[in-house]
């Protein structure tokens, strides 16, 4: 893996003040904001890898996201219009209807964005029909369903059934995740994948898009 820049490394080390100082210095020297973001993204990828290897935990993941969020708030007003165009393979994700928990989902969203995916975060308490509409609209090939409550199992099955009903089930792979889910739940719901954790979820999305 390529050597991280000092900025990316400062982010990996969770040194917020140093990150801020280096960003200001880069801006003074005329570096385009998007190039600064690219450097930081490399740092976030490394954070994600440390999380995957259990060197970092949710605490580090959330704090690094917090640093990124503050930097992005600083840089976004400086972006040109074209800088903001979104690209990347699309993943639609949301917490299913009846459940409003989103901490795990938000962690997955962060990791997916860092990995270069274009993420459409539908939020929480999302009805099956809205998931289906978004898949149709975007042509996304990966749909992530999240829950914290086991009462959501029924609703997850409803999402899969709705995709069948509108005739798009074979166009999209359904991934489930969340505290109460496991492989047996996946089987029962009729989903394609079960993601044990956020990192597994990202890998599954990469695998989906690697398939023809």
């Amino acid at each position, binding site marked *: 893996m390529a050597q991280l820049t000092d900025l990316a490394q400062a982010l990996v080390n969770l040194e*917020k003040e140093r990150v801020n100082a280096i960003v200001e210095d880069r801006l003074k020297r005329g570096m385009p904001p998007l190039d600064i973001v690219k450097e930081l993204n490399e740092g976030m990828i490394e954070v994600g890898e440390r999380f995957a290897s259990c060197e970092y935990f949710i*605490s*580090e993941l*959330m704090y690094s996201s917090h640093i990124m969020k503050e930097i992005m708030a600083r840089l976004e007003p400086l972006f040109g219009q074209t800088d903001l165009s979104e690209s990347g393979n699309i993943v639609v994700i949301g917490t299913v209807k*009846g*459940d409003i928990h989103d901490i795990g989902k938000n962690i997955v969203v962060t990791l997916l964005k860092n990995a270069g995916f274009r993420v459409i975060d539908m939020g929480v308490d999302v009805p099956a029909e809205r998931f289906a509409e978004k898949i149709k609209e975007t042509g996304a090939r990966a749909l992530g369903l999240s829950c914290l*409550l086991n*009462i959501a*199992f029924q609703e997850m099955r409803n999402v899969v059934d709705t995709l069948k009903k509108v005739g798009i089930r074979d166009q999209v792979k359904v991934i489930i995740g969340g505290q109460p889910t496991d492989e047996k739940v996946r089987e029962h719901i009729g989903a394609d994948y079960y993601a044990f954790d956020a990192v597994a979820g990202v890998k599954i999305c990469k695998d989906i898009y690697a398939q023809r």
Partner: protein
Amino acid sequence: MSDEIQQRFEERLARYQATIALEPTDRMIVGGTGSNYFAEVYAGYTRQEIMYDINKWMAAESKFAEDFPEIDMLRSGRIWAPIFDSVGFKLYRLPGRDLPANTDFQFVEGEWMKADEYGLLIRNPIEFLMEHRLPRVLGELKERGSARSYMAFLKGGMAYMLMAQVMRERVQNLEKKHGLPQPSQGVMLAPFDTLADGYRGLQGIMIDLFERPDKVLEACDALIPDSVNCSLMTADPLKRYPIFMPLHRGNHPFLSPKQFEAFYWPSLFKAVTLLLEAGYTVRAYLEGDWTPNWHHWNQFPKGKILCDIDNKADISRAKKEIGNNVCLAGGIPDRMFIFGTPEEIRSRVKELCETVGKDGGLILNGGCGIPYSTKPENFRAYIDATLGYGKYSDTVKPKLKKAPPPWVAKIPPPRVITPWEVKLKEFGGVTGDETLIKGIWQMLEQRAFCWLRFWDW
């Protein structure tokens, strides 16, 4: 209560106490869950009806107890919604009010304490709560000083006493009519969870670990005396039942093991130790996966703690690593209750009885509860299989434990807003028996402070 029901109650309670103490008993506890969500909905009431109508709540529990007379304890539901409405408590969305009537209640994440308020929380929790946190979490306090805000305190206090009465009626119904003990009474959060759940929120506390770690540690320690005192105030005065602790952020991988040891465990250990010294046992839900961290429970005296192991963790491994010191509950995946078959349930119960539970120290349960969507035939299979495979002895008959002696507290007395000494000075002394006046004054003051802490989560 008839002699027969009394006897059944005492047998069940003795069996539960012996199981927690890791002492010999006659058989496995049946239906020994601390949270029987299935029992809330079994009789056909909506979640909203159970939360708002105590008569329906009691009827639902009675129906469940009648249809499943083999269970050894029953606690369903934890929220009496009218108290939340009395003050506009913002931390929950409730069925029938914000959510469809038959949906679970849900916790609302938020930052209800600002990062620069640690000092105030530590130095002056009354001011912190009254002036800062409560106006944020109690919607009825929006216009401070208005008649409506004064009425919110009054109604909230009245609802607090009503709720205590309502809970007493529920517990008495189960005890006197059905001979059923409670799985727990009284509750306490880990100090770190107090900060992480309802004060700073998860986002806030994670930032604090890196930007103000000393404050987090100081606040956790500062919370201990009040948390313990308020918990003891709601616990069983006869000390028959464990105190309940739902534990959240000790769940891997929220914190690294180093962070867990530095931030989560020390204040939790101190707080639980105080509860044990006060003569109680503790029932702790290790929510999520505690595998890297649960070994810390071996620091407590043997036979004083019951740990519920959630679905994500391996209960066999828990047995190996902590099962000689603490009693365990769990073992049956929630999805097995929901999607599985009676045969699968029977097979799983048999396996657990022959392995993890073969020498006792196990209460069969789902992941910290019995799910709402449990199929009735699966619950029946769970009971029958526990009775069939969970027998230990025909001759051992556990005895009820004697209440421990009164506790000489090693922490400051319960916090009050206006101490008796101040009031006495305002009176300019009293003409008769001071103790008659002082006792009630102090009791109301202490309960009033604990009312301020009731809204922690």
